[in-house]
Protein backbone atom coordinates (compact mmCIF):
# COMPACT_ATOMS: atom_id res chain seq x y z
CA UNK A 1 0.00 0.00 0.00
CA UNK A 2 2.73 2.44 1.01
CA UNK A 3 4.55 1.86 -2.25
CA UNK A 4 1.49 2.87 -4.29
CA UNK A 5 0.68 5.78 -1.99
CA UNK A 6 4.22 7.10 -2.11
CA UNK A 7 4.46 6.64 -5.87
CA UNK A 8 1.26 8.65 -6.36
CA UNK A 9 2.51 11.33 -3.97
CA UNK A 10 5.84 11.57 -5.84
CA UNK A 11 3.91 11.97 -9.10
CA UNK A 12 1.83 14.78 -7.53
CA UNK A 13 5.03 16.37 -6.22
CA UNK A 14 6.54 16.44 -9.72
CA UNK A 15 3.47 18.11 -11.27
CA UNK A 16 3.16 20.51 -8.35
CA UNK A 17 6.74 21.65 -8.87
CA UNK A 18 6.07 22.15 -12.58
CA UNK A 19 3.18 24.44 -11.57
CA UNK A 20 5.39 26.38 -9.10
CA UNK A 21 7.96 27.04 -11.80
CA UNK A 22 5.34 28.01 -14.41
CA UNK A 23 3.61 30.32 -11.91
CA UNK A 24 6.78 32.33 -11.26
CA UNK A 25 7.53 32.48 -14.99
CA UNK A 26 3.99 33.67 -15.82
CA UNK A 27 4.17 36.35 -13.10
CA UNK A 28 6.74 38.16 -15.24
CA UNK A 29 5.69 36.81 -18.68
CA UNK A 30 1.88 37.13 -18.52
CA UNK A 31 1.41 36.88 -22.31
CA UNK A 32 3.60 33.86 -23.01
CA UNK A 33 1.13 31.57 -24.81
CA UNK A 34 3.28 28.44 -24.58
CA UNK A 35 3.70 28.85 -20.83
CA UNK A 36 -0.02 29.54 -20.41
CA UNK A 37 -0.96 26.40 -22.34
CA UNK A 38 1.57 24.39 -20.33
CA UNK A 39 0.19 25.83 -17.08
CA UNK A 40 -3.41 24.97 -17.98
CA UNK A 41 -2.55 21.42 -19.04
CA UNK A 42 -0.37 20.84 -15.98
CA UNK A 43 -3.03 22.26 -13.67
CA UNK A 44 -5.58 19.82 -15.08
CA UNK A 45 -3.16 16.89 -14.68
CA UNK A 46 -2.35 17.92 -11.09
CA UNK A 47 -6.05 18.16 -10.22
CA UNK A 48 -6.73 14.67 -11.57
CA UNK A 49 -3.85 13.17 -9.56
CA UNK A 50 -4.77 15.02 -6.35
CA UNK A 51 -8.43 13.94 -6.69
CA UNK A 52 -7.30 10.33 -7.06
CA UNK A 53 -5.01 10.58 -4.00
CA UNK A 54 -7.63 12.28 -1.83
CA UNK A 55 -10.32 9.75 -2.76
CA UNK A 56 -8.02 6.99 -1.46
CA UNK A 57 -6.11 8.58 1.42
CA UNK A 58 -7.99 11.72 2.52
CA UNK A 59 -7.21 15.43 2.18
CA UNK A 60 -3.77 16.46 0.91
CA UNK A 61 -4.46 20.11 1.83
CA UNK A 62 -6.05 21.67 4.89
CA UNK A 63 -8.98 24.11 5.16
CA UNK A 64 -11.70 22.11 3.45
CA UNK A 65 -10.43 21.66 -0.09
CA UNK A 66 -11.33 17.95 0.08
CA UNK A 67 -13.90 15.95 2.11
CA UNK A 68 -12.80 13.55 4.86
CA UNK A 69 -13.80 9.98 5.70
CA UNK A 70 -14.20 8.80 9.30
CA UNK A 71 -12.17 9.11 11.43
CA UNK A 72 -10.87 12.62 10.57
CA UNK A 73 -8.24 11.82 7.96
CA UNK A 74 -6.29 15.09 7.83
CA UNK A 75 -4.65 14.61 11.23
CA UNK A 76 -3.48 11.08 10.37
CA UNK A 77 0.11 10.74 9.23
CA UNK A 78 2.41 10.49 7.61
CA UNK A 79 3.74 14.06 7.63
CA UNK A 80 6.36 15.25 5.12
CA UNK A 81 9.16 15.59 7.67
CA UNK A 82 8.61 11.97 8.74
CA UNK A 83 8.82 10.43 5.27
CA UNK A 84 10.90 12.92 3.30
CA UNK A 85 8.10 13.10 0.71
Amino acid at each position, binding site marked *: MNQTRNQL*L*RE*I*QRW*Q*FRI*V*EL*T*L*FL*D*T*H*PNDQRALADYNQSSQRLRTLVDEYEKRYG*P*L*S*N*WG*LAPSGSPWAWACGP*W*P*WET*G*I
Partner: protein
Amino acid sequence: MWVYVKHLEHPISVSRPDPAFAKVLITQYGGPDGEFSASWRYLSQRYTMPTRQTKAICTDIGTEELAHLEMVATMVHMLTRDAGPKQMEAAGWGGHYVQHGPALYLQDAAGVPWTAAFFQSTGDPVADLTEDMAAEQKARATYERLICLATDPGIRDALRFLREREVVHFQRFGEGLMSVQEYLNNKHHAWPGYDLPKTRPGS
Protein backbone atom coordinates in the same frame (compact mmCIF):
# COMPACT_ATOMS: atom_id res chain seq x y z
CA MET B 1 -4.60 33.14 3.63
CA TRP B 2 -2.32 30.18 3.13
CA VAL B 3 -3.10 26.56 2.33
CA TYR B 4 -0.75 23.81 3.52
CA VAL B 5 -0.06 20.93 1.15
CA LYS B 6 1.04 17.75 2.86
CA HIS B 7 4.14 17.00 0.79
CA LEU B 8 7.55 18.59 0.33
CA GLU B 9 8.38 20.61 -2.77
CA HIS B 10 11.16 18.13 -3.58
CA PRO B 11 11.80 14.73 -1.92
CA ILE B 12 14.53 14.21 0.68
CA SER B 13 16.30 11.03 1.68
CA VAL B 14 18.86 10.81 4.46
CA SER B 15 20.89 7.64 4.81
CA ARG B 16 22.33 8.14 8.31
CA PRO B 17 22.32 10.57 11.26
CA ASP B 18 24.88 13.36 10.86
CA PRO B 19 24.48 16.07 13.52
CA ALA B 20 27.74 17.72 12.42
CA PHE B 21 26.24 18.48 9.01
CA ALA B 22 22.92 19.51 10.59
CA LYS B 23 24.87 22.05 12.64
CA VAL B 24 26.11 23.87 9.52
CA LEU B 25 22.96 23.28 7.45
CA ILE B 26 20.78 25.00 10.05
CA THR B 27 22.04 28.37 8.83
CA GLN B 28 19.68 27.94 5.88
CA TYR B 29 16.87 27.60 8.45
CA GLY B 30 17.53 30.60 10.71
CA GLY B 31 20.68 32.30 9.43
CA PRO B 32 20.95 35.69 7.67
CA ASP B 33 20.74 34.20 4.16
CA GLY B 34 18.47 31.33 5.16
CA GLU B 35 14.94 30.47 4.08
CA PHE B 36 13.18 32.06 7.06
CA SER B 37 14.83 35.41 6.27
CA ALA B 38 14.03 34.93 2.58
CA SER B 39 10.34 34.12 2.99
CA TRP B 40 9.60 36.96 5.42
CA ARG B 41 11.74 39.44 3.52
CA TYR B 42 9.57 39.03 0.42
CA LEU B 43 6.29 38.56 2.28
CA SER B 44 6.95 41.78 4.26
CA GLN B 45 7.99 43.78 1.21
CA ARG B 46 5.04 42.78 -1.01
CA TYR B 47 2.66 45.34 0.52
CA THR B 48 4.60 48.27 -0.93
CA MET B 49 5.30 46.80 -4.37
CA PRO B 50 3.83 49.07 -7.05
CA THR B 51 3.37 46.81 -10.07
CA ARG B 52 1.21 43.79 -10.85
CA GLN B 53 4.33 41.72 -11.54
CA THR B 54 6.17 42.59 -8.32
CA LYS B 55 3.12 42.04 -6.06
CA ALA B 56 2.76 38.55 -7.60
CA ILE B 57 6.46 37.70 -7.57
CA CYS B 58 6.98 38.71 -3.90
CA THR B 59 3.91 36.70 -2.88
CA ASP B 60 4.81 33.60 -4.90
CA ILE B 61 8.57 33.52 -4.23
CA GLY B 62 7.89 34.31 -0.54
CA THR B 63 5.52 31.35 -0.46
CA GLU B 64 7.96 29.05 -2.27
CA GLU B 65 10.61 30.00 0.32
CA LEU B 66 8.28 28.65 3.03
CA ALA B 67 8.40 25.32 1.18
CA HIS B 68 12.22 25.58 1.13
CA LEU B 69 12.20 26.34 4.87
CA GLU B 70 10.26 23.09 5.30
CA MET B 71 12.83 21.19 3.20
CA VAL B 72 15.75 22.51 5.25
CA ALA B 73 13.88 21.78 8.50
CA THR B 74 13.15 18.25 7.30
CA MET B 75 16.83 17.66 6.51
CA VAL B 76 17.96 18.93 9.93
CA HIS B 77 15.26 16.84 11.61
CA MET B 78 16.20 13.68 9.70
CA LEU B 79 19.92 14.20 10.33
CA THR B 80 19.40 14.53 14.10
CA ARG B 81 16.29 12.52 15.03
CA ASP B 82 18.23 9.28 15.56
CA ALA B 83 21.36 10.89 17.01
CA GLY B 84 21.85 10.36 20.73
CA PRO B 85 23.09 12.99 23.23
CA LYS B 86 26.69 11.80 22.99
CA GLN B 87 26.62 11.91 19.19
CA MET B 88 25.27 15.46 19.32
CA GLU B 89 28.01 16.46 21.75
CA ALA B 90 30.74 14.81 19.66
CA ALA B 91 29.48 16.78 16.64
CA GLY B 92 30.00 20.03 18.53
CA TRP B 93 26.27 20.46 19.06
CA GLY B 94 26.10 19.69 22.78
CA GLY B 95 24.92 23.23 23.47
CA HIS B 96 22.01 22.82 21.08
CA TYR B 97 21.16 19.47 22.63
CA VAL B 98 21.07 20.97 26.14
CA GLN B 99 18.98 23.98 25.17
CA HIS B 100 16.70 22.52 22.48
CA GLY B 101 17.01 18.73 22.54
CA PRO B 102 16.22 17.43 19.05
CA ALA B 103 14.04 20.47 18.23
CA LEU B 104 14.42 22.95 15.40
CA TYR B 105 15.57 26.42 16.46
CA LEU B 106 16.03 29.51 14.25
CA GLN B 107 19.78 30.05 14.36
CA ASP B 108 22.81 30.22 12.08
CA ALA B 109 25.72 27.78 11.87
CA ALA B 110 27.45 29.52 14.80
CA GLY B 111 24.33 29.34 17.01
CA VAL B 112 23.40 33.04 16.58
CA PRO B 113 19.60 33.34 16.87
CA TRP B 114 17.51 34.72 14.01
CA THR B 115 16.79 38.45 14.14
CA ALA B 116 14.67 40.84 12.06
CA ALA B 117 17.89 42.81 11.48
CA PHE B 118 18.78 40.14 8.87
CA PHE B 119 16.68 41.91 6.24
CA GLN B 120 15.26 45.28 5.25
CA SER B 121 11.81 46.38 4.20
CA THR B 122 12.23 49.96 3.03
CA GLY B 123 8.98 50.66 1.20
CA ASP B 124 11.10 51.60 -1.81
CA PRO B 125 10.72 48.90 -4.48
CA VAL B 126 14.09 49.56 -6.16
CA ALA B 127 15.92 49.27 -2.83
CA ASP B 128 13.90 46.20 -1.81
CA LEU B 129 14.20 44.35 -5.13
CA THR B 130 17.95 44.90 -5.40
CA GLU B 131 18.24 43.56 -1.83
CA ASP B 132 16.17 40.56 -2.91
CA MET B 133 18.47 39.87 -5.86
CA ALA B 134 21.52 40.07 -3.59
CA ALA B 135 19.79 37.79 -1.08
CA GLU B 136 19.27 35.13 -3.75
CA GLN B 137 22.96 35.26 -4.68
CA LYS B 138 24.04 35.02 -1.03
CA ALA B 139 21.79 32.00 -0.54
CA ARG B 140 23.19 30.42 -3.74
CA ALA B 141 26.75 30.90 -2.48
CA THR B 142 25.80 29.36 0.89
CA TYR B 143 24.21 26.33 -0.78
CA GLU B 144 27.37 25.86 -2.86
CA ARG B 145 29.50 25.78 0.31
CA LEU B 146 27.06 23.31 1.88
CA ILE B 147 27.22 21.09 -1.23
CA CYS B 148 31.04 21.09 -0.90
CA LEU B 149 30.71 19.79 2.68
CA ALA B 150 27.84 17.32 2.15
CA THR B 151 28.56 13.62 1.65
CA ASP B 152 25.08 12.04 1.75
CA PRO B 153 23.76 11.70 -1.84
CA GLY B 154 20.15 12.44 -0.76
CA ILE B 155 21.22 15.64 0.99
CA ARG B 156 23.38 16.70 -1.97
CA ASP B 157 20.43 16.22 -4.33
CA ALA B 158 18.12 18.39 -2.17
CA LEU B 159 20.80 21.10 -1.81
CA ARG B 160 21.35 21.16 -5.57
CA PHE B 161 17.61 21.62 -6.07
CA LEU B 162 17.54 24.51 -3.57
CA ARG B 163 20.60 26.13 -5.17
CA GLU B 164 18.94 26.04 -8.56
CA ARG B 165 15.81 27.72 -7.21
CA GLU B 166 17.93 30.67 -5.99
CA VAL B 167 19.13 31.16 -9.57
CA VAL B 168 15.55 31.15 -10.90
CA HIS B 169 14.37 33.56 -8.20
CA PHE B 170 17.23 35.96 -8.99
CA GLN B 171 16.06 36.00 -12.61
CA ARG B 172 12.40 36.62 -11.68
CA PHE B 173 13.29 39.46 -9.26
CA GLY B 174 15.39 41.03 -12.01
CA GLU B 175 12.39 40.97 -14.35
CA GLY B 176 10.24 42.43 -11.56
CA LEU B 177 12.76 45.24 -11.12
CA MET B 178 12.48 46.02 -14.84
CA SER B 179 8.70 46.39 -14.45
CA VAL B 180 9.29 48.85 -11.58
CA GLN B 181 11.79 50.87 -13.62
CA GLU B 182 9.26 51.08 -16.44
CA TYR B 183 6.62 52.20 -13.93
CA LEU B 184 8.94 54.90 -12.53
CA ASN B 185 9.83 56.13 -16.01
CA ASN B 186 6.16 56.92 -16.55
CA LYS B 187 5.80 60.69 -16.05
CA HIS B 188 2.96 60.16 -13.56
CA HIS B 189 5.25 58.57 -11.01
CA ALA B 190 7.83 60.73 -9.25
CA TRP B 191 9.06 57.95 -7.02
CA PRO B 192 7.70 54.61 -5.90
CA GLY B 193 4.14 54.62 -4.67
CA TYR B 194 3.60 58.38 -4.80
CA ASP B 195 1.77 60.19 -7.57
CA LEU B 196 3.03 63.65 -8.51
CA PRO B 197 -0.22 65.57 -7.97
CA LYS B 198 -0.57 64.30 -4.42
CA THR B 199 2.99 65.07 -3.35
CA ARG B 200 3.63 68.37 -5.12
CA PRO B 201 1.40 71.11 -3.73
CA GLY B 202 -0.09 73.37 -6.38
CA SER B 203 0.59 71.02 -9.27
